[in-house]
């Protein structure tokens, strides 16, 4: 009786210390386009990884029914064999292989163990026609744009006899024209009986193509809205995405705001590889002493790129704009210059950019300001240990001693080591990029306390986050960033999650 192609019931998935999904249910009707919405970290991607077998059956609780049969995927190969294909945000194409080779990668068209090139290219051409791509199948993937690469991914999915296509943020890296084309294609495939699940932050797109929307928040299903029967506005979806109480998850704090200490003017940054792609567009931000300023932006909005380019030109090319420290124009074009001007940047990606994971706590904490512990180039290891022990205590880092290897600490404790490193460098302005990503609620509360403490010491703190309740809970003032542009600058008293989300998902050229 059911027309559902897919039902996920009571899915619960826990990571050490974090409950990523809690009793999540999802029903997708055959032949429909089903959108999934939620903030970053709400659990959308985790849910899709459970569905596609990236997290093997047995590592989660709950039941998945696909085409009226209970399935238990142990790997992504098994889910693909049944007709579920996921296309990730980061495309999984091999750049120096041809379009046809990519389409049949892992599924080579062969005759007696030898690749049948004629068949490969002929079949690929047919698939390309289905997705509306006119390029020659022997073109190398690196020679076509991101929009076309996305279409190649879909052609690859079609080659696997896809029944349920999952697209994770498919238009995040695409321009308007390519996005429109892609959305048309998804609709077109719907006409051919292919069901799609689309994860997106762009609410206008969801409105345009989705039949139903399921909203996930904090690892739980909140509601499923029918886009046809109900009159669903973008505001209605946003409310579902952010609507949670802001209880006492944030320590009480009132900031003593002083003089302006950092101002960034007309900051423009281009992509390091594609020099014609502007990633940050004429951004103006400032922070005062004792002030906690938020930058609200979704993934891909240019928030990290903004921060890293200001911090010693660590990202991007053709950077232009001015940085004023205490009203004086300064150069921050190398990391050491930025540090000496009192800047600190704690990365969103601890493991790759924040910590030396094979080194101990003591040496990680001292790295950014080793000169403070050295005389004539020689480090005083005893003072260094004393410093590290001080942070172990004051930051409540849970580790046996300062010799503990940081790679073995939990996410929250690793984050505290990163913060300790930058606190030891005694900066005037700290830029904290997603300071609470991947850490549990208790540790989050502690991090908020640390942020407040830093502001009380008269430092300016910039917090980059896509979790709106977090920004509303701790910041004095919030900027929104969309597609590299600052779209709003509001004091906390006037900010609401709905307003921020609307400005964060704002399409380009809507305002200007």
């Amino acid at each position, binding site marked *: 009786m059911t027309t559902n192609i897919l039902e996920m019931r009571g899915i619960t998935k826990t990571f050490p210390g974090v409950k990523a999904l809690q009793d999540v249910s999802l029903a997708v009707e055959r032949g429909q386009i089903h959108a999934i919405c939620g903030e970053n970290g709400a659990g959308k991607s985790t849910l899709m990884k459970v569905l596609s077998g990236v997290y093997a059956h047995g590592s989660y609780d709950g039941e998945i029914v696909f085409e009226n049969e209970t399935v238990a995927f142990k790997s992504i190969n098994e889910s693909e064999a049944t007709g579920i294909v996921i296309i990730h945000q980061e495309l999984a194409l091999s750049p120096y292989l041809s379009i046809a080779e990519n389409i049949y990668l892992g599924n080579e068209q062969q005759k007696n163990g030898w690749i049948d090139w004629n068949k490969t290219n002929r079949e690929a051409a047919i698939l390309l026609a289905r997705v509306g791509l006119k390029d020659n199948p022997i073109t190398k993937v690196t020679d076509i744009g991101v929009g076309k690469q996305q279409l190649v991914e879909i052609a690859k999915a079609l080659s696997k006899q896809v029944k349920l296509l999952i697209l994770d943020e498919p238009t995040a890296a695409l321009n308007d024209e390519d996005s429109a084309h892609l959305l048309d294609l998804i609709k077109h495939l719907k006409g051919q009986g292919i069901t799609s699940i689309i994860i997106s932050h762009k609410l206008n797109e969801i409105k345009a193509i989705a039949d139903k929307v399921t909203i996930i928040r904090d690892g739980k299903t909140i509601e499923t809205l029918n886009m046809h029967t109900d009159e669903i506005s973008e505001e209605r979806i946003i409310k579902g995405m952010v609507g949670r109480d802001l209880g006492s998850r944030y320590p009480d704090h009132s900031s003593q705001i002083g003089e302006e200490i950092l101002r960034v003017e007309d900051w423009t940054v281009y992509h390091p590889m594609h020099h014609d792609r502007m990633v940050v567009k004429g951004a103006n931000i400032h922070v005062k002493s004792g002030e906690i300023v938020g930058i609200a932006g979704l993934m891909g909005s240019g928030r990290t790129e903004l921060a890293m380019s200001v911090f010693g030109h660590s990202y991007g090319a053709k950077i232009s704009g001015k940085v004023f420290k205490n009203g004086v124009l300064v150069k921050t074009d190398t990391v050491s210059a930025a540090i000496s001007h009192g800047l600190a940047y704690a990365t969103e990606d601890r493991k790759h*950019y924040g*910590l030396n994971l094979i080194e101990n706590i003591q040496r990680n904490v001292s790295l950014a300001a080793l000169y403070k512990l050295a005389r004539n180039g020689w480090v005083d290891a005893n003072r260094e240990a004393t410093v590290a022990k001080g942070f172990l205590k004051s930051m409540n880092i849970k580790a046996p001693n300062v010799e503990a290897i940081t790679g073995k600490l939990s996410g929250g404790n690793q984050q505290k080591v990163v913060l300790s490193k930058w606190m030891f460098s005694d900066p005037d302005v700290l830029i904290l990029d997603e300071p609470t990503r991947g850490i549990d609620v208790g540790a989050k509360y502690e991090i908020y306390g640390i942020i407040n403490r830093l502001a009380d010491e008269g430092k300016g703190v910039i917090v980059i986050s896509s979790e709106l309740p977090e920004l509303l809970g701790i910041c004095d003032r919030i900027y929104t960033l969309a597609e590299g542009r600052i779209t709003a600058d509001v004091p906390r008293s006037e900010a609401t999650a709905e307003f921020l989300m609307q400005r964060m998902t704002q399409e380009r050229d809507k305002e200007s």
Partner: protein
Amino acid sequence: MSAFRSSLDYLAGQLRQIGLFIALIAIIIFFQVATSGITLKPINVSNLIVQNSYILILAVGMVMVIIAGHIDLSVGSVVAFVGAMSGVMITQWHIPWWGAIILCLIVGALVGMWQGFWIAYFGIPAFIVTLAGMLTFRGLTQIALQNQQISPFPDEFRALGSGFLPDLGGGTSLLEPLTVGLGVLATLLLVAQGIRSRLARQKYDVEDEPLAWFVLKLAFTSGLILLITFLLASYRGTPIVLVVLGVLIVGYSAVMSRSVFGRHVYALGGNRQAAALSGVKTKRVTFLLFVNMGVIAALAGLVFTAQLNLANPKAGDGFELDAIAAVFIGGAAVTGGIGTVTGAIIGGLIIGILNNGMSILGVGTEFQQLIKGLVLLGAVAFDVYNKRRSGGR
């Protein structure tokens, strides 16, 4: 009870270093027995040090390069090139021996700057740049020597490779007094420094190794130095190259463990992006490391040439592999960020003693190669196994 447990925990953490020491001692004992006592005869110990000195010197520079996450394949050719230059300078340009030594070290620095430039500032992987260097400097060696050998060298120059410190006993005393003096002095300095830093750590209330372990380690190292002193003093005294080597080991150990530069090298090898975002000038550190490696390779080239009393177009062939093997047997990580100067020296000694012992036993070179290969593989396998067992990444 808990003190005992924490001692055990501490030792477990030091497993790699202890294992390395035990392996070294086991190999020495094995060959001492198998060669019926020839291995630890004074003349053999003296030869062992002298004949392995240039590999040990190279290992000191190589371990730093490898900790930073790079590699240097060119050092064998640089050894030959510098040897050739020293020959040309002394015999054809008639530059005094001491001037030639200084100029050769400068040549080494220039070689390092050349390679360091391409690696650090141009961004070509060290493997490629130094592979190219291996070929170009071998070629330059042959050009400089015009495919001829140069020999002989003046005695003062040869002393760098095969000379001994003067015998203060006039060749009549049973033990050479200067060597005994130096050995005792070194032991006293070692003990004093050990106690001093332990007291300083206690003053700062820094976690320290258990007392018993500290005493044991100090006693063992002192004993080892005194044993070597005794053996050397009962032969011809202290090889000059041992003094050079000693200075290098002590100096670079200090640089790597205590200097800002050394810390930056470890940070660079452990996570280059994190180091760069912490203000480490990663390009400059890489450049300087290769300059340093060039100078050290030049020094090894001088020692080798002096020892053979010959500048030879084929000199130094395969030295880079011995040095790299020594570093990895000594516990350095292939991915960078881990390793010590002393580890590399012990690794080099293990290879040296294997070579020496097997030669005495008359083991053919084919089996020597085979066994050395298996030792290298085994040592690294042991590392990988340990890391996996302790749950590290």
